[in-house]
């Protein structure tokens, strides 16, 4: 690999940066290569120089990956790709379907807005996972991959897809094949997430990916208690809203992506995760005071963020053993 090749490949790897940022980064690396060339100790024959350059520079792909990790170019796009679907698209899927197909609810469940809506939601989630991959953004993937897994899980849970030999949706071969498809997809995505969590040593991303699972656990426990008559007076979440729709959860969903995705400061990014965890947990916690176990369950998202934040601060002051954090 010669010098122009190296810089060309590096330039290609820096595609997410603005032209100005890319120029500055390339100038710095070109300066490094020139300094190596001027070094009397550096090999002078083209082949020897090329070999040593390759060994000392590392691959241009590694360099661009490292620089992207640090600078996170176009962070605002990640921010919008979390904020806008969560506020303006996903909550409205079922509402729009019911408006478009008002008669659907009167037919079978398989043609109801609820049935179609969750499939549309999964398709939208899958699209956002693909966008995360195309952008090469681990921070975006850490949000949309768990959300996708949980939406598929909700479908399987609601339609009892794991009861392969019985149940409404498994009474025909087509239904069984569809169930197998969802279960296989769910397993594959769960394995992918586990590999992702194991490979990323960044605690911010690990906590971001785990929070939706804790919310779902709380929702399922509360739902189970509600269905068995555990809340005779109803499960009453506090009705704090702005303009009728924007409750604490929605407001939080505007604030936390800004803090988490736009900021480069770790304390602000941790604060972003706290803003993500707090509203939903707090509202449910207030509604669940009858059941200490449920209160504990709803406290875990907040406790996880606080605990991980404290550990991160303490470890940051100690010898760093986190290679890619």
């Amino acid at each position, binding site marked *: 690999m010669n010098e122009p090749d190296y810089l060309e490949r590096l330039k290609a790897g820096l595609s997410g940066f603005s032209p100005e940022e890319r120029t500055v980064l390339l*100038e710095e690396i*070109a300066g*490094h290569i020139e300094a190596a060339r001027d070094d009397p100790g550096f090999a002078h024959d083209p082949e020897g120089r090329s070999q040593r350059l390759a060994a000392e520079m*590392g691959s241009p792909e590694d*360099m661009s990956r*490292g620089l992207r990790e640090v600078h996170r170019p176009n962070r605002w796009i990640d921010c919008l790709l979390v904020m806008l679907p969560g506020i303006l698209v996903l909550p409205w899927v079922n509402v729009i379907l019911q408006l478009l197909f008002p008669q659907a609810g009167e037919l079978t469940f398989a043609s109801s807005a609820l049935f179609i809506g969750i499939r549309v939601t999964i398709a939208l989630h899958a699209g956002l996972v693909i966008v995360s991959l195309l952008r090469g953004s681990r921070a975006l993937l850490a949000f949309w991959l768990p959300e996708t897994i949980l939406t598929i899980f909700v479908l399987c849970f609601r339609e009892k897809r794991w009861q392969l030999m019985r149940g409404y949706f498994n009474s025909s071969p087509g239904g069984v094949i569809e169930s197998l498809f969802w279960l296989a997809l769910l397993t594959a995505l769960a394995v992918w997430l586990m590999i992702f969590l194991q490979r990323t040593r960044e605690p911010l991303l690990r906590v971001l990916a785990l929070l939706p699972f804790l919310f779902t656990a709380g929702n399922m426990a509360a739902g189970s208690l509600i269905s068995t008559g555990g809340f005779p007076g109803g499960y009453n979440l506090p009705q704090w809203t702005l303009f009728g729709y924007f409750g604490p959860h929605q407001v939080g969903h505007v604030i936390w992506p800004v803090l988490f995705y736009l900021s480069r400061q770790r304390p602000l990014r941790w604060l972003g995760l706290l803003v993500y965890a707090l509203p939903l947990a707090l509202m449910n916690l207030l509604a669940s005071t009858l059941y200490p176990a449920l209160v504990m369950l709803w406290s875990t998202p907040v406790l996880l963020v606080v605990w991980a934040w404290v550990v991160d601060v303490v470890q940051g002051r100690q*010898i760093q*053993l986190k290679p890619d954090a």
Partner: protein
Amino acid sequence: MTDIQQLRKGSTPMLILSILAEGNKHGYAIMRELEQRSEGYFSMTAALLYPALHQMEQEGLVTSEWEQPAGQHKRKMYAITPAGRKRLSSGQAEWRQFVDRLFTTMNGPAHLHMGDGQ
């Protein structure tokens, strides 16, 4: 990645700070100095060095400014900041303690063994 490799990678910011504590340098000079001081043990690739330098700049441990020597390509010179010196000082103490404790712990049974006169 082995534990030793992780330790070497984790020590990168401290090594860079220790070199910049003795004067401003550009990336290539930092690499060479590191290699010479450690007799090649702590040599690192540019793909590791530059992201580390940029990360340290974001954390306020180093600053940088462009310099253009006559007839040469522009170079970005890095300098340690007061926060960087503070981090270096506390980091050196922590590393010293870590290495001391590591050897004390690893050599413990051998010392006991010898102390028993066997």
